[in-house]
């Protein structure tokens, strides 16, 4: 009902194509993201936000890179292990494209403060999407089967996509927009591959 009313308001305001999704989110069979609308971005100083978002994205890529790397070492089910290693390599590439854009924007060739001091984070703790501590996630994964781990990975990717779409929307500068757009597309590809792997379980 709310959604139909919303579409009606938009149509009245001149939106040529406004559609209400039947059944609302309850009818949605796809994956869902969680977290507030600003996905934690509001936490950062607006004056420096683009650089901080880049640092945040880098940190999260680092976390998932390590998580997938560890999952890739789990021998059971060679196919899934290969997938995790490939995902880990991709996240490593994402880190370098994020670092390059940071260098260009900040004008700093190397910066020991990147990314942690930009985010006021202590060294030694790695994070995943949603503020999950990597170490805890790895502990959790120890006793779990492939299915649970794939599902957890899917939730990481969905939240990463959600975050990158929002960052792309808000960040200024064509180049940074392109980086976030490319990242969200690549994470969408990860999502497809993880979903395919999950369907085989």
């Amino acid at each position: 009902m709310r959604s139909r009313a919303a579409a009606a308001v938009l149509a009245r305001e001149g939106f040529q194509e406004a559609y209400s999704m039947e059944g609302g989110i309850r009818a949605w069979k796809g994956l869902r993201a969680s977290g507030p609308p600003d996905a934690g971005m509001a936490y950062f100083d607006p004056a420096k936000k683009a650089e901080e978002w880049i640092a945040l994205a880098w940190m999260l890529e680092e976390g998932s890179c390590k998580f997938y790397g560890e999952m890739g070492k789990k021998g059971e089910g060679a196919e899934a292990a290969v997938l995790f290693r490939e995902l880990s390599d991709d996240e490593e590439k994402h880190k370098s494209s994020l670092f390059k854009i940071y260098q260009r924007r900040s004008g700093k060739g190397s910066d020991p403060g990147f990314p942690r001091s930009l985010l006021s984070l202590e060294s030694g703790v790695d994070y995943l999407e949603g503020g999950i501590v990597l170490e805890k996630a790895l502990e959790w994964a120890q006793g779990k089967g492939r299915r649970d781990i794939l599902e957890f990975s899917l939730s990481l990717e969905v939240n990463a996509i959600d975050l990158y779409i929002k960052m792309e929307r808000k960040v200024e500068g064509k180049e940074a927009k392109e980086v976030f757009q490319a990242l969200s597309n690549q994470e969408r590809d990860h999502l497809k591959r993880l979903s395919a792997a999950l369907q085989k379980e």
Partner: protein
Amino acid sequence: MGILDYFKPVDTWPPEKVRQFLDEKSPQEYNLVDVRTPREYEEEHLPGARLIPVGELETRWKELDRNKPTITY
């Protein structure tokens, strides 16, 4: 938003069509708007959706590009 908005015929899409559309397009090509409350949004939402609660849409629709296909839920 008046009460009459609730009774206007609107175009609707089944979730499966929405899903296919979102799969095929990149997020820059459409508006996806969650019109529920911040609390509901925080609990779960479609990836990349913007939150504009239905009661705020009257003033905040300008945040959206009206030339793009727009999906609300």
